[in-house]
């Protein structure tokens, strides 16, 4: 009996393929980039280096990515449709949550009778609405400058020159202002 080298190769490829993530199965956080630079508001605030690796150890994928990584969402409003949603083709925040929000194209999007998500936050809203409650609960920084260093334009925007008292150092009770 002669062994066909081509068959060995094919078997090896098949075996290898079995270990790779396949559509329909959950994604692994290690597949994601280690850090993500968030610079959508880079005018008033300096860019934020978001450690995806660190956060993936502190939270579950679906806490941020909803149903798109193939992990089942538990929100009763979401599982009405997404109970068995497979891994989506895009998982990046900005692919669903647009950077531009409330511009005519978003305002009139609701005219599409097939659109269910009529109340989807923009990118900035999605970040803050998801990040802040968790930061408050876990005693992580939750005042603005805890994550965002102000640029000179930002300092001007907030009028830090107006009677500079207490401006350089954000108010101590700021944590309690945050939700």
């Amino acid at each position: 009996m002669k062994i066909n080298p081509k068959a060995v190769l094919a078997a090896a490829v098949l075996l290898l393929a079995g270990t790779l993530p396949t559509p329909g199965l959950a994604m692994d956080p290690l597949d994601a980039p280690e850090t993500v630079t968030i610079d959508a508001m880079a005018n008033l605030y300096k860019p934020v280096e978001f450690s995806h690796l660190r956060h993936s150890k502190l939270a579950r994928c679906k806490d941020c990515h909803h149903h798109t990584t193939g992990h089942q969402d538990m929100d009763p409003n979401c599982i009405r449709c997404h109970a068995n949603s497979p891994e989506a083709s895009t998982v990046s925040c900005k692919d669903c949550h647009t950077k531009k929000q409330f511009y005519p194209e978003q305002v009139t999007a609701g005219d599409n009778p097939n659109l269910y998500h009529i109340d989807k936050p923009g990118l900035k809203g999605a970040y803050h609405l998801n990040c802040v409650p968790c930061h408050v609960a876990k005693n992580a920084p939750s005042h603005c400058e805890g994550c965002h260093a102000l640029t000179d334009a930002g300092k001007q925007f907030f009028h830090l020159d107006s009677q500079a008292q207490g401006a350089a150092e954000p108010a101590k009770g700021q944590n309690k202002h945050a939700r």
Partner: protein
Amino acid sequence: MNTLINRRRFLQGSLAASAAATISLAKKTEAASFEGYPNAMGVLVDLSRCVGCRSCEAACNKEQNLPAPEKPFNDFSVFDEMHHGQKRRTDETRYTIVNRYEIPGREHPLFRKIQCNHCQEPACLTSCFVNAYTKTPEGAVIYNVDVCVGCRTCMVACPFYIPAFRYSSAFSPRIMKCVFCHETRLTKGLPPACVEACPQEALTFGRRSDLVEVGKQRIRENPGAYVDHIYGEHEAGGTAWMYLSPAPFEQVGFDTSMPKEPILNYVKDFLAIVPMVLTIWPALFAGFHLLATRKDKMEQQKKNEGEV
């Protein structure tokens, strides 16, 4: 005898005519109720999302070129300020402000943004006798300084105490009030500066009719998270800016005794009679006077003739 009957008939006829005029005018005003422009824009303010960062105040200040604030916009001691026993209000230096409310039984305070609510049928507009205010099809209530005489009736008329007067300027006094960024943004299809600045998307901009649906959906899909009411859907006849709150509205400083119909309705019927009073009454009472004094005049005339 003949004259007496004529006079009675005249009185009866004129009274009937004036009554008919009153009724017909009153009917006309009742029918003219304004439902708002179909594609007017609005903002839904979700108090459960606001964290009191004051970015909206800073954005408004910059967009409207308002004077520099006393304290920087990231100074949170302003939430403790009390002026004559009241929390901060909009004034000639700020079109919008955020106030903090401690709610009994809640771990974290709530924050409420205050600005002009841009009523569907604004009381300021109807109270203004020189038409300095306009409700635009985009939904904004704007103000024209060129025709304003500075009577400040609008400040009294506004049920939300929003218009402020620039008393500080002796040479260019004017009303200062949020204009929904009408000229700089709204007419270009852009959201107002405060909405764009809000990091929490506590401010949702869209067509007012869509926002009512969004508000109802948020209440429906988050049971227990909100009071089942959208403040401004019907208050004061409906406003372009509306609010959702997780705590009873009176605890967050809202006037819950606000009528559900436009403020205008309280004076509409009276105002409809004013033109009639001004046009019909002078002629009517002049006629009464002439008839009442006719007898005396005739007697006087007879006397004079007799003397001659």
